[in-house]
């Protein structure tokens, strides 16, 4: 079969990047950036998830069709978050109601 065989070096680099990302997330959480803490931790998590998808899951070497299907999951997720929150945010009767 002609599936792409990645070099072990790529796997070890991705692994190193994932470990560094985890340590960075942990250290960043100890520093008080206020609400910006959320942005930092989610940005690192997105980078880590992308590395796993592209290299460990091999989407980088997969067909265009696999790219589209994989991406569609996250597009639908954004629609779920976007439309639901646009409803709650535009009403203003929930925030801090239970604290």
């Amino acid at each position, binding site marked *: *079969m*002609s*599936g792409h*065989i*990645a070099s*072990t070096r790529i*796997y*070890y680099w*991705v*692994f190193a990047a*994932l*470990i560094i990302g*985890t340590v960075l*997330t*942990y250290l960043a*959480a*100890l520093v*008080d950036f*206020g609400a910006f*803490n*959320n942005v930092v*931790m*989610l940005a*690192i*998590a997105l980078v*880590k*998830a992308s590395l*796993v*998808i592209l*290299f*460990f*899951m*091999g989407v980088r070497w*997969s*067909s265009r*069709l*696999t790219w589209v*299907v*994989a991406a*569609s*999951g*996250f597009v*639908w*997720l954004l629609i*779920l*978050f976007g439309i*639901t*929150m646009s409803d*709650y945010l535009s009403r203003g009767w*929930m*925030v*801090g*109601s*239970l*604290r």
Partner: protein
Amino acid sequence: MPSQSHSEHFPGPIHNPPVIKGEVHKGHGPHAHHPKLQHHFDDMDQQLEASTLGMWVFLVTEIMFFGGLFMAYLMYRWANPTAFQEASAHLDKFWGAVNTIVLIVSSLTMAMAVRSAQTSAKPKTQVMWLVATMFFGTVFLGVKVVEYTDKFTHNLVPGPNFVWTGQYPAGAEIFYSLYFCMTGLHALHMIIGLGMMTVITVMARRGTFDGSYYTPVEVSGLYWHFVDIVWIFLFPLLYLIGAHYGAGH
């Protein structure tokens, strides 16, 4: 008018004859088949491609499955920001980080297991990587057992026995409901993954996989990595949001 030959309709196997290893089935049409090639596929490449795509479609439904819980988290955290910080501060960041690293190591060994099958490594080598993956998966669940036990002994399980001595018991109970739903569903996926890996390991031990056929390893690898990705998001969202609770907020 002469009848058209099979090859003009389905040119795949003619131009790209599959690499044949092991027993060859003859007497089925003009072409030799790989023993693991199912009849509805043209060749091994198409079979791998179709299986990979099918797994991705399943993983998209899984993204939406977990997505509903992430949506609930987003909404309730927005409604109870301070309570979530207070509740999260009680989780042990250290064990959360350890488990994140354990899962990343298991993802590496999984990728290496797929690679060892792709490169036709000895069954022993393939089994070693798969067993390593299962070992780290089990370590993850072991840590989870320790954490859950702690929650039960400290009355942090939502329900009639939930006790919260902090300022925001209502919001904290919602946080712990989400904590148990999200990490519980994730742990269930880990257990299912371990079951899948057991089957794959037995197959690998029998020498089923080599460079010409490794689709089951590849597809279960996709599942394993997906479960890792879910945890990559769960770790910061559940464990790390409370580090500065009480520090001037």
